């Protein structure tokens, strides 16, 4: 029986985390839940622990990518075969966990991306985000040579080989998105999208507020550009290094 871990980075999500864990438990799938408390100042770790999830608390706020990477390191060391990563704000509907698990065991892909745009146009976002997501999905599609509809989706399932790749210092600490997909493709990993429905999130609370979108766009273009300039990483078949 293959072991799966759900990794959820959480920063000040005391209002959502119990509901998210409860919804995952209701799916009755054979998986463990790990909350990475990214330096929350509220009761997120206590609530998560009381809800039955394992909790790892980072000593200070380290960013979304670093929190996720901590989960990957834990999964590798504890012998998990797959990781499903989800957001703590409830945007990612746990009813699709079963789809991920059934798809990843087929072994025809290393990374599964839950795409909110494969399931229809019902996901509502601002026009600015739509343009940004369209641009990065277009660039990803061009480089990967396959259609990528949702390169910014954080609802993903990764196999153990990908975890071994991600625990290196190449993994970005802030916003792992289209640049990481391109990195995975260049390293020879197989990427596949599956349709999911996502709930609308509070855009004021996420990375899409203030001047962060500008930084995000700049960083993503730079990251994609230098990823293409770098020597292709040879990673397939390499064991975990951490």
């Amino acid at each position, binding site marked *: 029986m293959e072991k799966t871990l759900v990794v959820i980075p959480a920063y000040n999500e005391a209002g959502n985390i119990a509901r998210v864990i409860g919804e995952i438990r209701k799916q009755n799938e054979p998986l463990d839940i790990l909350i990475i408390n990214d330096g929350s100042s509220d009761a997120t770790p206590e609530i998560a622990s009381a809800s039955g999830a394992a909790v*790892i608390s*980072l*000593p200070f706020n380290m960013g979304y990518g*670093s929190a996720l990477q*901590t989960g990957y*390191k834990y999964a590798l*060391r504890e012998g998990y075969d797959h990781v499903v990563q989800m957001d703590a704000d409830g945007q990612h509907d746990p009813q699709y966990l079963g789809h991920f698990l059934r798809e990843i065991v087929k072994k025809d892909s290393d990374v599964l991306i839950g795409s909110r745009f494969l399931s229809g146009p019902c996901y509502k976002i601002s026009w600015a985000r739509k343009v940004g997501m369209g641009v990065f999905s277009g660039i990803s599609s061009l480089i990967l040579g396959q259609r990528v509809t949702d390169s910014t989706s954080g609802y993903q399932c990764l196999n153990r080989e990908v975890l071994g790749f991600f625990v290196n210092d190449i993994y970005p*600490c802030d916003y792992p998105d289209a640049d990481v997909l391109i990195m995975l493709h260049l390293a020879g990993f197989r990427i596949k999208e599956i349709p999911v429905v996502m709930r609308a999130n509070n855009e004021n609370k996420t990375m899409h507020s203030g001047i962060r979108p500008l930084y995000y766009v700049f960083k993503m273009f730079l990251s994609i550009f230098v990823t293409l300039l770098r020597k292709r990483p040879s990673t397939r078949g390499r064991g975990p290094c951490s």
Partner: protein
Amino acid sequence: MFIRQQVVAITIAVIIFITIIELVRRRKLKEEYSWLWLVTGGGLFVFAVWSDLLKAVTRFIGAGISTSTIFFFGIIFLIVLNLYFSIVISSFANQIKNLGQELALLKKKVQK
């Protein structure tokens, strides 16, 4: 270059050089971060002693007067120094991230 200017420039270069060596000797500054300052002090000393070289460089970069050349290289030095520190900080940030993650993972293991 007037003799008085030359004496001031040589004195400053020597003070920079001695200060850096002393900081390294007292272990207040690591050897790997001292090289840029030593190169700067050395450069200043060479220009102060060999004023014809400063004039030649001024002509080469197309500056009008020697003081412009000194300011030009001063700004270049500050840019290089900032870039160097950014590289060092990036490396530290990565190390701190790894340490923080290890601490959290080990804490979890101990709690088990």
